[in-house]
């Protein structure tokens, strides 16, 4: 079957005959792999113990992985039997990406060693070999012929895959999830910042390679075909995570990522679907959290009541809903920019108000700047979330309990997002976002639908907030700022949605995970974290405003030239008739 448009082959950056290019790349990859078995530095002062000859450690493992992947990908494109499935597009671009990723992480490691230990003298010959070999690999890869990436609209469809029995396809999906989970777990579990940076570099390039190889497209097709299995597999994979952990250390991180992701997904309804500019979203999270804190029997709470969990959740969500309507009703009738300012103001006012309600500067309700500590653990029936529980042969630590609860909430929010988006209401939201005047002419009540989206978003945030209050044991006003180093805050939430990809489900989840992990892991950036964040936002909107996981619509909106169809002859196209 012929492709519709043939990609235009271009001369490689480094013109060399194909066989030489291949040989170079292979040799380079092999050498790079080999170099990881040597010592790269003489002292253990650099974390990961790169001083051993005989087996790779720490960042060397990343280099090794990168080199092996490059080799395998090259062989796949070389039509090696058994590996052909790894490169449906038969393009050399993935190899180049992988080579670049290996180079990036290797050179980063070596530079980090030099910088931290004070000089190139700290590198062992193994390190120099690694640097040279990685460079050689990339040079070889750049000498391979590559196809210029077609524009999104004209992307060549892949040749259809070899048909597989259903069980095999499902197995592939499961394997893909297992792989993703391991990669994620490894990333979360990285013990020191340098390892995390190297990990990010390698995964970033590897993901680009996956896309370029067409494997993501293949996987998407499979998941599309077996929709329900995919969702179940994802759920099982996520639920299984705490079982892989011995301690609570990483489970706590993942719970917080989940909370952050869920709230980001809620914001995605408001910003990604309906296109409303909400800059104070974290306040709704706070309303839910504070409400739950007040009614859950904390000793510091001014309301001495202790609702059962389901009641606390409903109260928290309802409180957020009320505030959402109160803020939205006057503002959503007006131009969208006003909503941005009002929500920003609301975010600040919420924080100031709860900080003031300590009996002195204001009526006593929320215990002022000290917040409400000692929120008791959740207990549903006999199941106390704060204690280790045994379910059959599985032991669940306290944070594992909360994790599973939060997972349920996340699933709920994903469901809401997906169902609302693919419906009459969802279409109306997108129509309003595209052209509100035209949408109104279709009979859509713009104000009512915008209020619906806004209120729904607020409710979801409130829901997440009630769980957050229990996980964090305390609620304080300082958590709910517009921008700060610790997520979640409104700026980070917005960034998570946009970085990940507005309007998609996986987008905000990915964006939230990245934005939570990066500041947490890269401690050496300490003072410059927010600065990096600000600059990253600017660069993101300049070069990839649709985010990592592009919504098809968004990509077109941002990149294709606005082709308002103009009539062929300049007939009477006057503004007024």
């Amino acid at each position: 079957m012929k492709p519709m448009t043939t990609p235009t082959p271009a001369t490689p950056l480094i013109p060399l005959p194909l066989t030489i290019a291949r040989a170079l790349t292979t040799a380079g990859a092999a050498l790079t792999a080999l170099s990881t078995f040597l010592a790269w530095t003489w002292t253990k002062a650099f974390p990961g113990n790169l001083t051993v000859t005989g087996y790779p450690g720490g960042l060397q493992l990343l280099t090794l992985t990168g080199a092996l992947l490059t080799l395998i990908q090259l062989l796949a494109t070389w039509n090696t039997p058994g590996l052909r499935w790894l490169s449906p597009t038969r393009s050399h671009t993935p190899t180049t990406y992988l080579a670049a990723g290996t180079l990036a992480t290797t050179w980063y490691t070596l530079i980090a060693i030099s910088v931290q230990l004070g000089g190139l003298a700290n590198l062992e010959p193994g390190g120099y070999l690694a640097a040279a070999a990685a460079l050689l690999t990339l040079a070889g890869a750049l000498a391979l012929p590559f196809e210029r990436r077609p524009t999104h609209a004209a992307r060549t469809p892949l040749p259809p895959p070899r048909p597989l029995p259903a069980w095999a396809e499902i197995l592939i999906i499961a394997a893909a999830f297992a792989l993703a989970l391991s990669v994620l777990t490894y990333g979360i579990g990285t013990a020191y910042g340098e390892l995390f940076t190297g990990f990010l570099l390698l995964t970033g390039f590897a993901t680009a390679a996956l896309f370029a190889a067409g494997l993501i497209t293949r996987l998407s097709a499979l998941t599309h075909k077996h929709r329900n299995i995919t969702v179940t597999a994802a759920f099982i994979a996520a639920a299984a995570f705490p079982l892989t952990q011995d301690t609570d250390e990483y489970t706590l991180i993942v719970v917080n990522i989940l909370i952050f992701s869920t709230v980001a997904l809620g914001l995605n309804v408001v910003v990604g679907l309906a296109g409303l500019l909400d800059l104070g979203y974290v306040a709704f999270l706070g309303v839910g959290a504070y409400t739950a804190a007040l009614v859950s029997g904390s000793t510091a709470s001014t309301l001495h009541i202790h609702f059962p969990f389901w009641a606390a959740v409903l109260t928290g969500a309802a409180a957020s809903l009320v505030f959402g309507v109160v803020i939205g009703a006057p503002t959503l009738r007006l131009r969208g920019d006003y909503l941005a300012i009002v929500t920003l103001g609301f975010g600040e006012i919420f924080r100031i108000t709860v900080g003031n309600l300590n009996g002195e500067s204001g009526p006593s309700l929320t215990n002022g700047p000290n917040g409400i500590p000692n929120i008791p653990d959740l207990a549903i029936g006999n199941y106390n979330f704060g204690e280790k529980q045994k379910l059959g042969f599985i032991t669940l630590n306290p944070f594992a309990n909360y994790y599973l609860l939060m997972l349920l909430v996340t699933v709920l929010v994903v469901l809401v997002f997906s169902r609302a988006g693919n419906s009459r209401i969802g279409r109306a939201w997108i129509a309003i976002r595209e052209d509100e005047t035209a949408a109104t002419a279709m009979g859509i009540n713009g104000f009512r639908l915008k209020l619906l989206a806004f209120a729904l978003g607020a409710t979801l945030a409130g829901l997440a907030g009630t769980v957050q209050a229990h996980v964090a044991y305390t609620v304080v006003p300082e958590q709910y700022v517009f921008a700060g180093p610790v997520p979640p805050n409104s700026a980070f939430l917005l960034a998570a949605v946009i970085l990940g990809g507005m309007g998609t489900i996986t987008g905000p989840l990915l964006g939230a995970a990245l934005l939570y992990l990066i500041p947490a892991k890269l401690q050496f950036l300490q003072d410059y974290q927010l600065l990096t964040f600000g600059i990253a936002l600017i660069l993101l909107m300049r070069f990839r405003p649709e985010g990592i996981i592009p919504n098809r619509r968004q990509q077109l909106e941002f990149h294709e030239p606005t082709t308002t169809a103009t009539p062929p002859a300049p007939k009477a196209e006057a503004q007024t008739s």
Partner: protein
Amino acid sequence: MTTTSDAPAAPLLAATGVTMRFGGLTAVRAVDLTVHPHQIVGLIGPNGAGKTTFFNCLTGLYTPTEGTVTYRGTRLPPKPHLVTTAGIARTFQNIRLFANMTVLENVLVGRHTRTKEGLLAALLRGPRFHRAEKTSEERAMELLEFTGLANKRHHLARNLPYGEQRKLEIARALASEPGLLLLDEPTAGMNPHETRTTEQLVLAIREKGTAVLVIEHDMRFIFNLCDHVAVLVQGQKLVEGTPDTVQSDERVIAAYLGTPLENPPGDDTDPTGDAT
């Protein structure tokens, strides 16, 4: 006001004394117009005559400074989306499609006002929801076939050629099952072949039971289609009647060609309108 065509039933749309003022500028001045069921009425006039402004008064986008508009005997609701629910649909002079939605999705949005499955139904996904979605898709496909766009239903609206975008706009407007369709310069920029196709389409729309009020500059289009034509010049209705009457009226010719008149309706006549 003389209506020469046979007007059997009560008027579908009755605009009486509609005046629209923007600060010191009077864009539309005391215009009366009726549209009867099954009629195709044309609204012509030089550029700047106030035709689109008048349309906007008919769809609730503007509230007339003076005068009333009734549809099927009841006054028009003040909000545009309510006007569509009441039964008047429109297209726009500059195409306003939902560019990044598919052809099918555009028409589905058009059906919004005739369906009522809200957020709760969408979240619960009961049988009623699925039935409604299926019905909506079927109706939308009918309309796409009616306008000849069925094979492009998953194309993005922005990728359609100009003529098909215009057709999509009409299909989308028809999705709300209107009793009256307002077309604002539907053949602007079309070649003669596309214009004939549009003529056929409008006739077919009338066959299906929807009355049509159309703003146009293409005189042959008007004369082939319309039972009744009104001429708007400088915001006022100059003349009205059958296409023949209007075509041969001296004042109309003067308005388009610019011969000075003895009793001009306004100060200057703008001679930049298209001559037939």
